[in-house]
């Protein structure tokens, strides 16, 4: 018989059992919650931690100039990664890697100790380091191929090209604006891994191949680009200016043939340069255009027939507007003159008079038609809008100053576009930087047609303006841009810079805007020199740069030289103009020169003409000797001798080839050049590709 105590024990065991049953029921519910309601979420997360999606970089598209010369290519390079779980001794591994890659060993060790599946140690390293790491064969440390962007011509066209970041993403320039075409689509390898980074047997495997990026053909002509960059370097040295910009445009199509700024940077090492130097002043800067703007004023007043070229003006040296006297740049004024002479002399008084006569509304109609105060929509990043005073707030005094290019701010690209519109019979086109996007097979993905935005004036007025601008160069302030043999039209400009407290003493922008040939413009060009030291007049420092560059460009484009319109074709001239034979083969050059009536003499034994004396376009008597040089290429055009790259590292080889204007195409996994094609000593056209085999 059970005692009373035993009864209590039995009761309490029942209570205990019920308590246990309740807890079990609770745990059952908890399991149901985890395995029913949270199951998919937990399973997904569990898969996420096991699946490793290793990106396979797509090869980025090549950027070519308009003739297919390479400006930006992608070279294979190695990147180092770590799978921390596989590393045996994190500190030792970190120390060894840090020594090779010049990294902070302690930080690296901390990184390697983190519990993560995969981490980059250093990406896009040089060949020597990659080889050294391969030799160590550290557990948990691996190398993988990635692409590094390489700009074979270094600084050339840097502001157009831009650069790419570590993930090969476009960060500036065309690399950025056309990134979606260039980048292609990264592929991936999907693998399921265990916690130590080994593949799980029978697990998911998938390879998604990358899609290569498209190639881009710029409107840029490398030779013209080289011409203006050379001239920019020269003018920076001569004037000690703070900055300078040149833009060359095809006025009919709106294509930018060349565009460059100084100071510049090397996109191969963009990070070593101040971000200030990355700025593309040609589209990002706004400045007061000064007298170059008078091209637009002239077009407006002639277009609305406010004035005729032969209308007479009297310049007493100044004009009073709203109680303020605007002085002409010339003390005492220009006296009595026709409107043509007003333009030739860049007479402020005259321009203020016609501008006020035109009136606010028509004037603003033209400003708008020229595209001022708005982005030109060129496909380059960071474009500014310029500043145009709000039409409703503008006073006659503002109209007066705008007439002479003050109190208005434009970007260089806006001004060249406006000047091009005059050159293009009054039709303004959208400035373009890319001609074509092609896929790897050469099929056109996207073509760029000439994009006429607006008719600014009729062709007849445009013709009048062209004429008067030609006489600015022939007879007026633009004389220094004159090049014998070519008809050049243009306008100088000198503007005092505006700072916080008004015009800044001693700080000027000298510029020249124009086009050539005047009657059938092939190129329009703008030269801007910012804060030159010493002489600061556009006519004195910008015009000569314009003249020198336009001469070389005309020669390069083989624009037939013409006598001036007022020249007498009947008159028998014993002088003949020297034709350009640069870049021709020697035999052909001989024929051309002989046919023109000269006595050619070959000074060097090359195959292709690199230079000639006298220069093309010179007027010299018939029968004179013309010296032909073959060895020193002037602008990188013509052929170059292939240097010997055998035994060099990839970097050394690409440097050497880059210096002579050749591109490099590395093949093979090694670090030293074993073979090259073409062989050293061969003569090949500049810009060609040298294939180097690395072993």
């Amino acid at each position, binding site marked *: 018989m059970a005692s009373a105590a035993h009864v209590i*024990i039995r009761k*309490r*065991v029942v209570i205990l059992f019920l308590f246990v049953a309740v807890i*079990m029921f609770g745990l059952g519910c908890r399991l*149901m919650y985890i395995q029913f309601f949270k199951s998919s*979420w937990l399973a997904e997360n*569990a898969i996420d931690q*096991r699946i490793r999606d290793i990106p396979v970089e797509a090869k980025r598209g090549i950027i070519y100039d308009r003739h297919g010369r390479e400006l930006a290519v992608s070279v294979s390079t190695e990147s180092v990664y770590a799978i921390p779980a596989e590393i045996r001794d994190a500190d030792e591994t970190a120390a060894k890697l840090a020594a090779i890659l010049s990294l902070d060993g302690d930080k690296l060790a901390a990184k390697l100790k983190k519990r993560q599946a995969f981490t980059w140690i250093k990406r896009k390293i040089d060949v020597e380091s990659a080889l050294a790491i391969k030799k160590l064969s550290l557990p948990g440390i691996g190398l993988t191929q990635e692409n590094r962007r390489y700009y074979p011509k270094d600084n050339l066209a840097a502001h157009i090209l831009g650069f790419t970041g570590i993930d090969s993403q476009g960060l500036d320039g065309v690399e950025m604006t056309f990134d979606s075409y260039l980048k292609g689509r990264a592929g991936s390898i999907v693998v399921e891994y265990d916690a130590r980074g080994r593949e799980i047997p029978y697990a998911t495997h998938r390879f998604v191949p990358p899609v290569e990026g498209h190639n881009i053909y710029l409107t840029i002509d490398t030779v013209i680009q080289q011409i203006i960059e050379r001239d920019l370097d020269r003018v920076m040295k001569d004037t000690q200016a703070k900055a300078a910009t040149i833009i060359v445009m095809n006025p009919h199509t709106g294509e930018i043939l060349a565009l460059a700024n100084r100071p510049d940077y090397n996109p191969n090492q963009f990070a070593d340069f101040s971000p200030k130097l990355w700025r593309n002043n040609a589209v990002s800067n706004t400045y007061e255009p000064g007298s170059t703007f008078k091209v637009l004023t002239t077009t407006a007043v002639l277009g609305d027939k406010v004035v005729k070229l032969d209308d007479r003006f009297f310049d007493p040296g100044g004009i009073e507007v709203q109680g303020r006297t605007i002085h002409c740049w010339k003390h005492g004024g220009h006296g009595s003159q026709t409107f043509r002479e007003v333009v030739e002399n860049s007479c402020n008084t005259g321009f203020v008079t016609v501008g006020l006569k035109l009136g606010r509304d028509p004037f603003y109609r033209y400003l708008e038609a020229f595209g001022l105060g708005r982005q030109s929509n060129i496909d380059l990043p960071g474009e500014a809008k310029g500043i145009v005073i709000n039409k409703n707030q503008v006073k006659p005094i503002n109209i007066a100053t705008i007439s002479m290019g003050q109190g208005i701010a434009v970007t260089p690209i806006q001004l060249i576009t406006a000047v091009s519109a005059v050159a293009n019979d009054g039709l303004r086109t959208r400035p373009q930087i890319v001609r074509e996007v092609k896929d790897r097979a050469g099929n056109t993905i996207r073509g760029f047609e000439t994009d006429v935005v607006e008719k600014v004036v009729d062709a007849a007025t445009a013709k009048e303006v062209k004429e008067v601008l030609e006489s600015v160069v022939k007879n007026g302030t633009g004389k220094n841009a004159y090049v014998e043999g070519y008809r050049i039209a243009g306008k100088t400009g000198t503007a005092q810079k505006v700072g916080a407290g008004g015009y800044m003493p001693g700080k000027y922008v000298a510029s020249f805007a124009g086009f050539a040939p005047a009657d059938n413009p092939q190129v329009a060009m703008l030269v801007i020199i910012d804060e030159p030291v010493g002489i600061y007049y556009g006519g004195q420092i910008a015009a000569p740069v314009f003249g020198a560059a336009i001469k070389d460009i005309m020669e390069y484009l083989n624009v037939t030289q013409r006598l001036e319109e007022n020249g007498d074709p009947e008159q028998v001239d014993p002088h003949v103009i020297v034709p350009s034979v640069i870049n021709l083969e020697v035999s052909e050059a001989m024929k051309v020169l002989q046919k023109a009536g000269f006595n050619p003499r070959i000074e060097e034994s090359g195959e292709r003409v690199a230079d000639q004396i006298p220069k093309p376009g010179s007027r010299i008597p018939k029968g004179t000797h013309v010296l032909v040089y073959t060895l020193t290429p002037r602008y990188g055009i013509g052929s170059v001798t292939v240097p010997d790259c055998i035994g060099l590292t990839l970097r050394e080889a690409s440097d050497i080839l880059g210096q002579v204007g050749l591109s490099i195409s590395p093949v093979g996994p090694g670090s030293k050049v074993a073979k090259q094609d073409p062989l050293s000593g061969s003569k090949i056209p500049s810009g060609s590709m040298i294939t180097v085999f690395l072993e």
Partner: protein
Amino acid sequence: MGSRPKSPDPIIFCAIIALLAIGVVMVYSSSAVSAYVNFQDSYYFLKRQLIWVSLGLIAMFLTMNIDYHAWRKLAKPIMIVTLVLLVLVLVPGLGRVVNGARRWLGVGSIYMQPSEIAKLSMVLFCASSLSLRQDKITSFVKGVLPQLVVLLLVFGLILKEPDLGTALAIGGTVFVLLFTAGAKLSHLFSLGFAGVFGIISAIIVEPYRMKRLLAFSDPWSDPLDTGYHIIQSLYAIGSGGLFGVGLGRSREKFLYLPEPHTDFIFAILGEELGFIGTITIILLFFLFAWRGFKVAISAPDIFGSLMAAGLTTMIIMQALMNIAVVTASMPVTGIPLPFLSFGGSALIFTLSGVGILLNISRYVNLK
């Protein structure tokens, strides 16, 4: 009492055999990867588990055939031996340190955990001592205190190793035994408060315990450190869903979930066999609890009742704690899942306890 022993309770026996069988399969499935990685032998843990199970079953058959009344006199000497072992394991040079805890004692390749013996001997000791003092149980000093003194000794020594999970399981079991034996509820409440106070002080002394405590409530706040175990455990169980990913096809055992064949074997089981598998395990433990407590209720004497209740509680408490930990229902404390987790000495002593329980069942009329 004098009646001839019948055959033991078949339901307890079958539930245990089922749990052991599932355990062997799961130990193999969950340990194959880490066994291969660490020992280049996928069967490393399976072989050992089979040996331990065999030894455990032998121990069970032995205790099943020893009249449980024998333990009443043996309880005190066993307790003394246990205390000696618990002290020895703490002596540097004698106790073997694994994962920062000095828990193992042994020679050659044979090691055992004194704390495993402590679980069993504590139940024997309490059942014996409480049945002797059963008339004084309402007195705190004379009825309750003697067990508490021994418990504090054992608890303190195990905590010193440290092995908080086992210490808590033993403390909990003694508490349940005091309750079962008929201690005053006011005494038990006071003890409960004292326990809570103890836990709070333990946290103040070792702040990492607080982190662990918080980790279980939101493991994702520290997924790579304190929350890691629990997240991996939930990933495993959750991935299983209703029917599981299939036997042998766990992904978490690929070194994501540490110790998949010991404390977290239930998570791998949940992944491979799904809710069907986990609820089966719970039901088997429920069967065991039901029959175990039934034996306790029907036992012919107080000693038998207390023994049966204590042994059942000891096993069920560990099972519930383990399942609660792997389902993130309570803070992580290292407690193996009885019968399923890989583990040598634990299996032997647990099965010895089951043998004693089965022996009691032989003196009971169960329907």
